[in-house]
């Protein structure tokens, strides 16, 4: 009989303790970010999709060695280049990133020995069409320069 009332009492007390916790939380400030109205800046090391880095002359640093293409686990990268006559280095003519298959592992950036690739800080990526995620990085570079 005593345990019966003890159980009821301790049970009730535990319920009030729980209610006290939520009551205190009620008056604390909110912690969420109101996304479309407020945005966060990404940290320095954030890994978005890759972008080409340009040299001082505004040309991509890439020398079309193809290491990133080989390092990629999902075969997202297609690149091509030509060797203009009289020049030592190849010039990049095409750099396509198929972002639908990319898993942002960063192997391409790590494999690059010529400081030609970097991670972008972009995370607002949404579309209903698959084609929107096949990025032409050369075009993006030109668009950035404009």
């Amino acid at each position, binding site marked *: 009989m005593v345990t019966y009332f003890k159980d009821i009492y301790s049970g009730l007390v535990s*319920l009030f303790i729980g209610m006290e*916790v939520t009551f205190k*939380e009620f008056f604390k400030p909110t912690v969420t970010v109101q996304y479309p109205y407020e945005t966060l800046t990404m940290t320095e090391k*954030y*890994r978005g999709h890759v972008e080409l880095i340009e040299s001082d002359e505004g040309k991509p640093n890439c020398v079309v060695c193809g290491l990133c293409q080989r*390092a*990629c686990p999902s075969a997202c990268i297609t690149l091509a280049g030509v060797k203009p006559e009289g020049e030592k280095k190849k010039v990049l003519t095409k750099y396509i990133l198929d972002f639908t298959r990319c898993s942002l592992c960063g*192997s391409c950036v*790590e494999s690059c020995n010529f400081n030609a690739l970097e991670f972008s800080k972009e995370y607002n990526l949404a579309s209903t069409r698959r084609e929107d995620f096949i990025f032409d990085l050369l075009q993006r570079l030109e668009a950035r320069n404009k």
Partner: protein
Amino acid sequence: MSSPIQLQTDETFVLNVGPQHPATHGVLRVKMEMNGEYIVNAETVIGYIHRMHEKMGENKTYPQYLMNLSRMDYLGALGYSHGHVLVVEKAAGIEVPERAEYIRAIMVELNRIASHLFWFGAFVMDLGGFSPLMYALQDREYILDMLEAVTGSRLTYCYFRFGGLYNDIDDDFIDAARRFIPRMRKSLIKYDKLVTGNIIFRKRLEGNALLSKETCRKYGASSAVARGSGINFDVRKNEPYSVYPDFDFDVPVYHEGDSLARYMVRMKEMEQSLRIIEQGLDKLPDGPIMPKKKPKLIKPPAGDYYQAVETARGSFGVRLVSDGTKTPYRLKLRSPTYSNMHLFDESCRGMMIMDALAFMGSLDLVIPEIDR
């Protein structure tokens, strides 16, 4: 008039829980044969999110496979990567700098807390309380922010490399981690008050789904499922790897074998992880995070290698069979949830559906990790 229907008192019906059901947290399907609210028989059906991770392991080179591991268990990804890098390092004979190992341990423990926090929230949500999930997510968010600042991603990290790490940690991270430890301890007290002490919660879990040691052994259960049934097994203690022998921590073991014991084990594990992080930050040596000489192309000599690690969900084993080429001959992943989940079929017989789903919650299932 038609004749009255003959009622059969032992008539059962099949209830299809999942693959789209709020309690299965993913695409697990449980075919339950029910007698009213009581389960007569249950059969878990898996494979809805099978992605052939093991086969991918045979086709990809070693570094290319790194990012697959974090896709297995999206809540405690770093623990899985840890197992993979350790086995490849063992096979290829790569020396890991001490600093890198310490950072790995700290990261894995942080990730373990994040995973347990999410489990805690989701488990209480299974039981019908929604607010604890939000509080748990706030603390988890703090960890994810910390990890994001170092690893560059929030959930599916690709942070460990063979021989070391992708990025070094900086003072900001260490400060944040030091601030996190007291904050988390305070939160744990809050969870105790709000959830653990709650009479409704305790009444639901005490004596629910008793698992014997024998059952746990039979199915190869690990993590809190085994430790809640009195089996004192933790890979970090029993088969020490990495720098875990340097840390002073306890393995919480409960002997009741009910859902509350499993819950308590995980809550206590978070406290122990905090201790490991604290010690790791104190002992953190200086030095490089990548070895000086590292083979350019990883080609482990032919042989059979195995490494088990303790992840948030239990003991995870990677068996690597190498034939000396640049891709593995076979890469077998022993995932802990797969074993833990198969307890469910046998143990939930005769339970009511609400108890069975509470039991399922206490097993901490992550479906992509079962299906691989």
